[in-house]
């Protein structure tokens, strides 16, 4: 018999997956993969989107059944047929999307679906007590009696972790847990995870963020195209090495930015103000310009007006003041279609909500705004599906989009490939101005590199590019000038070359550039 954890549940000393195979129609999603994790260890599972990480873990959690291979828990073979089986065996999973009922309290959410110790009467007081114990032990800072809608994203995640612990998880699968967190929350999470491993829990950390994997794990297994590339100790591994293992070829983490001709200003935003979705002032007297052949990066903590700015320029949000000019022509208050006709392309931040129609095919999505133009129409209103499909084949080839074909619903594609299609669509019209909002968020390394190269190519072509990103590395790698936004205002504009990261950080926290300069 194995030992027990401080939570009172059975410890998982070792979990082993051997020769796991999973086939989906037409795809070998997981191809003879071996994987194991031990008590007290964080084992990172690294791979690009579609590499098979989630599929492998869903089999461990009983959401899928493997076609071949065995799972051994403490050296005894187990069959996990459902999440219920998994929980019985001490395996828990924290999903990317939290599954909490907003109107219920933390304790009610955790008790949900579990038997009450008092039969038909609720035992929420006992549940709360136990939550406090667990919360204290793992520094989760969770209050049992608060309705979950009041919790921030990071807190909701801690409730999910607590629920898994409460149900006896000795092994916890964390599916991209940091994707939704702020840097501060990521630090907090890591403290919790370290405490859990110190207590003998086994953790599997799914991610594609290299620096996090390096910071938290003891071992890394890299998957590529459903196969295990290698399992290596984290100590001694580097970002570059891991990236190359993931992508299968040497990668570039920094780009050469050749000198290009800079044209006149393509976009001029003058003293623009606008409201945000809550009806508060979202943009205050904002002014900036972007010239042809220039990438202007917009940095800032999410929710400081970047989204509103992009929408205002694209004609999707009304202004309360100011003026917007594109190529010297006033487009203030014009409709999105007029703005697009002026040569503006827009890669929206939420690609699944604003970028594509997910039940439409890849080909149909490619022509979302050009469907009324030649050659996609023949005889006035009839669509020319042959031309659309041909254009789509061409885009699939040129942009290296991985899809079974143009007639597949786009929701079947991975995030990176969907983003490549959006990019193909937006660049197809040879824009004068490109607004790229979070163009690589949730996109794997290979596609990210590809998208960055395309942006640089557009810059060389003379396009004016407004790059909005929360990823400072991305901003620094691509921008000619960097604009920092805070609460709907511009804190300062600095050249992209040799930028002072401290200076950027100070501006992002709300200190204007002149004050920052005084301080240093």
């Amino acid at each position: 018999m194995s030992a027990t954890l401080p939570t009172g549940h059975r410890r998982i000393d070792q979990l082993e997956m051997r020769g796991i195979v999973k086939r989906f129609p037409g795809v070998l999603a997981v191809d003879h993969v071996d994987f194991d994790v031990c008590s007290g260890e964080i084992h990172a599972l690294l791979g690009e989107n579609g590499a098979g990480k989630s599929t492998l873990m869903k089999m461990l959690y009983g959401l899928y059944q493997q076609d071949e291979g065995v799972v051994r828990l403490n050296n005894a073979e187990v069959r996990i047929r459902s999440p219920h089986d998994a929980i019985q065996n001490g395996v828990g999973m924290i999903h990317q999307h939290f599954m909490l009922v907003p109107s219920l309290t933390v304790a009610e959410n955790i008790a949900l679906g579990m038997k009450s110790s008092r039969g038909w009467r609720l035992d929420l007081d006992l549940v709360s007590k136990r939550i406090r114990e667990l919360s204290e032990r793992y520094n989760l800072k969770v209050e049992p009696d608060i309705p979950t809608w009041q919790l921030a994203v990071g807190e909701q995640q801690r409730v999910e972790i607590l629920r898994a612990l409460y149900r006896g998880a000795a092994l916890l699968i964390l599916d991209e847990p940091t994707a939704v967190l702020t840097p501060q929350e990521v630090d907090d999470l890591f403290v919790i995870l370290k405490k859990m491993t110190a207590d003998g829990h086994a953790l599997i950390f799914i991610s594609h963020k290299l620096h996090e994997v390096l910071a938290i794990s003891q071992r890394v297994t890299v998957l590529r195209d459903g196969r295990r590339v290698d399992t290596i100790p984290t100590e001694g591994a580097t970002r570059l090495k891991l990236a190359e293992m993931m992508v299968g070829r040497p990668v570039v983490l920094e780009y050469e930015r050749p000198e290009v001709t800079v044209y006149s200003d393509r976009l001029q935003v003058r003293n623009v103000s606008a409201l945000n979705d809550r009806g508060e002032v979202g943009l205050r007297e904002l002014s900036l310009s972007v010239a042809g052949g220039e990438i202007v990066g917009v940095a800032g903590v999410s929710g400081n007006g970047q989204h509103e700015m992009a929408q205002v320029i694209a004609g999707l949000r009304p202004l309360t003041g100011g003026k917007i000019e594109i190529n010297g022509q006033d487009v203030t208050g014009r409709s999105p279609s007029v703005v697009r006709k002026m040569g503006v392309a827009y890669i929206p931040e939420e690609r699944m909500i604003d970028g594509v129609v997910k039940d439409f095919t890849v080909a149909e999505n490619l022509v979302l705004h050009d469907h009324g133009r030649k050659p996609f129409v023949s005889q006035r209103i009839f669509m020319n599906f042959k031309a659309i499909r041909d254009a789509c084949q061409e885009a699939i080839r040129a942009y290296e989009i991985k899809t079974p074909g143009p007639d597949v619903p786009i929701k079947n594609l991975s995030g990176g490939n969907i983003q490549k299609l959006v990019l193909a669509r937006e660049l197809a019209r040879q824009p004068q101005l490109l607004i790229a909002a979070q163009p690589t968020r949730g996109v794997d390394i290979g596609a990210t590199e590809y998208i960055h190269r395309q942006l640089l190519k557009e810059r060389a072509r003379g396009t004016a590019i407004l790059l909005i990103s929360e990823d400072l590395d991305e901003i620094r790698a691509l921008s000619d000038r960097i604009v920092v936004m805070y609460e709907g205002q511009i804190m300062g504009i600095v050249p992209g070359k040799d930028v002072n990261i401290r200076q950027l950080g100070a501006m992002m926290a709300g200190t204007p550039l002149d004050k920052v300069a005084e301080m240093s």
Partner: protein
Amino acid sequence: MFFSSPNQTIRKAFNRIFDTTPLLISLVAALVVASVLLIAMSTDPLQAYRSMLNGAVGTENAFAETLVKAIPILFVAVGICVAFRGGVINIGGEGQMIAGALAGVSVALIATSLPGPLIILFSLTAGFVAGALYAGIAGFLKAYFNVNEILSTIMLNQIAVQSMNYLLNGVLLDPTEAGTNHIPKTAKILAEAQLPRFSITLPDAIYGALQGLGFAGTPELFARTRLHYGMIIAILLAVIIYMLLWRTTIGYRIRAVGENENASRYAGIHVPRQIILAMFIAGGCAGLAGVVQVLGLQYRLQTDGSATGFTANAGFNGIVAALFGGLNPLGAIPASAVFGGLLVGAQKMQRDMGVPAALITAVNGLIVIFTVSSQMFARRRARRRAANEPPRSERVLDAAVNTPMEQQT
């Protein structure tokens, strides 16, 4: 890489068959559940259904009546396909039918000096336009003021019924009926303005074979029934609307807005315009349903004071038929025939077995429930073969079932 092997072709055909079977299964399941109700009324369900089947397709006249009932249902259903695909839940088929009928009958009664075909053409046009404009009110309110179209169309139904009652007791009242105890109805339209009856001459071989099966009629099939050319107009309309939805930019934009309003807006599609247009087409189709009832069947507009008195619930049954037909205008053709048969068969069942024909309303409801739940099954199958083939039919009801919820949040 993804060429089509014989194996794949068979698989495709199999999948297509399998996609339609859930619908048939749901029909059967609804009838099975309804048989419990029949047993509760101490009626033998098998006998009842036999009587129903007999009443629906048992004789030449029964079959013709089934088709006659199916005509307005099909018109409405075709329009509902456009509305629901565009993300607009139009429940106002009844009101739009009435609006179309009022306009159509007015034209037919006024333009009597014109040649017959022109009266019919103008009357149909007036019916379409009136239905479209009437539905357009709800479309406009939704597009620009975010008024829930389910509520507004239902309320517009009431307004239409009362307007009809007012007009049929007033300016449109048949002059020969003027008096205290009149029936609210218009005068009869001219014979030239009526849609001709529809019949086909059977080839000898087929006629012989049918006679062998006990067919008692003449080779002039449907010659002595009420079946009229409205059927042909409805089928043509279904084909046109199918082309509109899947072959033209107009349909593309309507579907794009229905599936994802945000992405459409970002792509520069004028969203309010598509919502109004979808509503316009839906209302126009329902308007045609109304005017065709007048021109092809009743030859006047007549009511008992309720909407059903004129529409016989076609405005609602059309919604059910559209869903049953997978929100595809072509699918709506057989679906409408099935519902026409259910309604006509129920009458016969009532006469033979003493079971209230209203039972069939319950069957309709059951069919909706089973159709919607069969989608879950179809979707699960679709997910399994997701990587291989472009699924089409698994999202048949998605638009109807999911879109309104998403849009209301």
